[in-house]
């Protein structure tokens, strides 16, 4: 008996066979008739992942002025996979753009661990002329492409250079370290200043594009795109108006200057001269400029304000004064007689005033900066008490300013000498230390903290440049609240006495900085003229001035150093005057206009 649905099963078999025949015919067509064409298509078929560089975060000053942004730049890449004749491309490029042939080859070699489709950056920031030349000769330069990418830009040029720092391409040595494992050749990385310190915030997240390219490397179509995410922006405490004023005051001079708000530690201005142009250093570093900067004997890459250690000279005198007063070794009436010199051991230590000051107590000792008074006070207190006071103020450690590579100064002690030299301390050395010479070395930012310490009567805050970090969409990611770094438990009277004496330095006839007094504001300060002991690059003394203002309610604390500037009173105090004037006058104007606004 024939099964029930025999006819239907027959149909089923036919349908299955029909399907098989259709499929086989199509395969025959695709794989055998068109097989070679398809194979060629599949070989030419290449998808490349193109990186879209994320712009770095912006940097704004305290009033919202842009101090670092990005602009588009034309960068030249070579994709090794697309090169047909190595010499033709390399020689052609070298000739066209006047590049060093060996340099191009080195750059290509450095990327040998990356896929041959990886674009190797040869030159950045091409000018229009160069772009036109490359585009016109593209046919003869297979493998060469030009990409428009964001480039770091610093609108103020050399101003604020040491604070902002610069970015440059990550080096092949750095790439081998763990720290840079997320970077690829050609990526920019912060190398100095805030750019380095806040790299993790400033750096964005690169996007990517999948692009299909044909056999010559030409982009055929974009398959999909992942947009880059811009870096976070920094809002800094620096006041660009003040910064520009200080930069101008330093024109033609060498040295450093730090101004901060003593109530928060926020850094309002920071200058270091000589400076460099971060725009030039950030554009892939033209070899010449790098050579010029790094071989310059005046070290423009050193941030003198945080890395330069100098003898503080007389600006240091507040430290032995505080040490002796606090421990009751002297009081405000303790006087020493100054005849212009001080005989100790087998030598005479001179006072700057040849004729001498006569009988001097601590206040006049600071106001008129009598050296002999401090020789005596220093000897009475001893170097260790001076060191201990320096430690309380915070002069023996880093201030903690948020810039990379800060260097700590040195205030010696008997223990230090024993440890370092294996020798005992000589009293004669104490005599030098008492006037900020000998083995005392401090940075301008440390001396700024000394001014803040006295201005605040024993309290300091960590110097802070960045106020807050803000995400591209405006979300505040991090706010840097003031961090107290010293809260000294020392005699109130002692500190009040020294503080008042500093007012006298500027505001009393006979005070060493009387010439730099201001009409409507009481600035308090201390001059310093330090002998440069190191085998010099220049001649003469370093001119110092540390100050705070207004005396009654300090809003500024500062240290001004003019390297080889001569007298503190004549070279540095006037700069402090400019700083105080420009900052506080403007502030008063703002208060006035705010009041006027309120009345309207």
């Amino acid at each position, binding site marked *: 008996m024939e*099964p*029930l*649905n*025999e006819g*239907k*099963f027959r149909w*089923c*078999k036919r*349908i*299955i*066979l029909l*399907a*098989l025949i*259709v*499929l*086989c015919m*199509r*395969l*025959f067509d*695709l*794989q*055998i008739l*068109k*097989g*070679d*064409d*398809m*194979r060629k*298509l*599949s*070989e030419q*078929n*290449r*998808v490349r992942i193109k990186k879209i560089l994320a712009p770095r975060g912006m940097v704004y000053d305290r009033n919202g002025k842009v101090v670092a942004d990005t602009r588009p730049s034309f960068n030249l890449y070579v994709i090794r996979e697309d090169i047909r004749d190595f010499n033709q491309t390399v020689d052609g490029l070298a000739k066209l753009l006047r590049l060093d042939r060996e340099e191009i080859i080195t750059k290509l070699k450095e990327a040998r661990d990356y896929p041959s489709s990886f674009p190797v950056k040869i030159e950045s920031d091409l000018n229009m002329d160069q772009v036109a030349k490359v585009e016109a000769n593209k046919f003869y330069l297979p493998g060469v492409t030009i990409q428009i990418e964001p480039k770091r830009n610093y609108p103020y040029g050399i101003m604020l250079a040491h604070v902002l720092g610069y970015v440059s391409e990550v080096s092949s040595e750095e790439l081998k370290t763990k720290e840079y494992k997320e970077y690829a050749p050609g990526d920019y990385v912060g190398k100095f200043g805030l750019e380095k310190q806040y790299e993790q915030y400033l750096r964005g997240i690169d996007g990517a594009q*999948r692009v299909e390219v044909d056999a010559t490397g030409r982009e055929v*179509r*974009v*398959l999909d795109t992942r947009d880059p995410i811009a870096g976070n922006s920094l809002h800094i405490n620096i006041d660009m108006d003040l910064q520009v004023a200080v930069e101008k005051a330093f024109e033609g001079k060498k040295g450093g200057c730090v101004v901060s708000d003593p109530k928060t530690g926020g850094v309002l201005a920071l200058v270091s001269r000589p400076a460099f142009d971060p725009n030039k250093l950030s554009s892939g570093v033209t070899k010449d400029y790098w050579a010029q900067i790094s071989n310059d004997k005046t070290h423009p890459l050193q941030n003198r304000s945080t890395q330069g250690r100098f003898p503080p000279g007389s600006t240091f005198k507040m430290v032995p004064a505080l040490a002796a007063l606090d421990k009751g070794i002297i009081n405000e009436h303790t006087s020493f007689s100054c005849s212009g010199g001080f005989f100790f051991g087998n030598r005479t230590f001179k006072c700057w005033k040849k004729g001498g000051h006569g009988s001097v107590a601590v206040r006049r000792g600071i106001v008129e900066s009598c050296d002999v008074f401090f020789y005596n006070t220093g000897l009475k207190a001893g170097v260790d008490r001076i060191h201990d006071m320096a430690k309380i103020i915070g002069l023996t450690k880093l201030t903690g300013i948020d810039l990379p590579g800060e260097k700590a100064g040195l205030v010696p002690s008997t223990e230090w000498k024993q440890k370092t030299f294996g020798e005992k301390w000589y009293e004669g050395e104490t005599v030098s230390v008492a006037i900020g010479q000998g083995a005392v070395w401090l940075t301008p930012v440390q001396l700024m903290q000394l001014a803040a310490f006295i201005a605040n009567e024993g309290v300091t805050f960590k110097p802070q440049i960045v106020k807050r970090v803000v995400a591209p969409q405006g979300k505040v990611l991090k706010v840097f609240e003031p961090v107290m770094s010293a809260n000294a438990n020392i005699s109130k009277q002692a500190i009040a006495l020294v503080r008042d004496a500093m007012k006298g330095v500027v505001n009393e006839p006979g005070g060493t900085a009387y010439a730099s007094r201001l009409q409507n504001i009481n600035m308090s300060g201390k001059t310093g003229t330090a002998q440069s002991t190191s085998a010099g690059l220049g001649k003469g003394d370093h001119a110092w001035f540390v100050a705070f203002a207004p005396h009654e309610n300090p809003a500024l604390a500062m240290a001004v150093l003019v390297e080889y500037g001569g007298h503190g009173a004549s070279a540095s105090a006037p700069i402090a005057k400019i700083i105080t004037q420009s900052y506080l006058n403007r502030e008063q104007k703002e208060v006035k206009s705010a009041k006027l606004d309120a009345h309207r």
Partner: protein
Amino acid sequence: MHIDKRRFYHLDWYLICNGFALIAVGMLNLVSATRSIDSGPYNLLIKQLAALLVGLVAVAIVLAYDYRLIAGYSKYLYGITLALIIIVLILGTIAGGAKRWLTIAGFAFQPSELMKPVMVLLLATMLHQRKREGEPLTLKDIMLPLVLIFAPCVLILKQPDLGTAVVLLLSCMCMLWFVGITKSAYAVLLGLSAACVPIFWKYLMKPYQKMRILSLLYPDLDPSGYGYHSIQAKIAVGSGGFLGKGYLNGTQHKLHFIPEHHTDFIFTVFGEEWGFIGSILLFLLFVSFMLRCLKISRNTSDELGASIAFGITSVIFIQFTINILMAINLAPVVGIPLPFISYGGSSLISSLIGAGLILNVNMRRYMF
């Protein structure tokens, strides 16, 4: 329950060997296809092997009970599967923009896959109950079964999973044809389908599904989008040539030209690496498997068993044909896996349950 040892000898070893051959080809091919996937090649392979194990256990369970007994429970199985599909719609796991998966204890399961054998069981049972000797089924007879099949189809379309819905509807039609319906019923069904097409197009299909169909007809419509993937799939298969590029030597899928190359587009990987010869051999494996299934259906004198076997065969045939046609750019891109070969645990388990049902029918066909 007792297990009659004699039944072991009635197992169709031809079908079993053929099935295992397909699974083995699938696993080997998966090794190649998943090389370029970021989560690591063996991760997916291990998941697939785990699914195979689960599927084999399911086969054992299916074999342990008489298919007539299982068919008796088909409405409950249907109810449970439908409930699972509804749950998926409410709180399913989203992958690739679609809500198809239910994640239980870390395993993602796709209940719509399970609907394939369950629907065959339900339809065979209901049609068998309504069947009168020598007479085709009338429209009235098939009304309720049709409604019961439409319900999950609409829900699955909502996921959206056009492919599974198409497989369910087409195999439902095949079964109706197999059991036999009146001429007037045919006319109504045809009219209904014709009327449904614009409704589907307008209300139930997503724009991308429409794009895929249009791009098959007009490849230049969107050459960088939907048309592009089809072209790249075609290039992959074509570049295999006569002998293929060799196992593990395919290049197209590595470039991520082809989406879903390890699931729905798995044949592009196979075709590229094994070429014309390999592809024909794979087709012959499938054809031999399906013909064997048909033979079992034919040799079963019990109409219920024959219908079940036929239904399962039609599910496998429809999936195989549409999947390959899609890979070689003769059918629009719909999410239909290649049975036993594509990556996807639910699909593998569903196919194994189907094969288990056919073995079950074959094993008990003499026992009335």
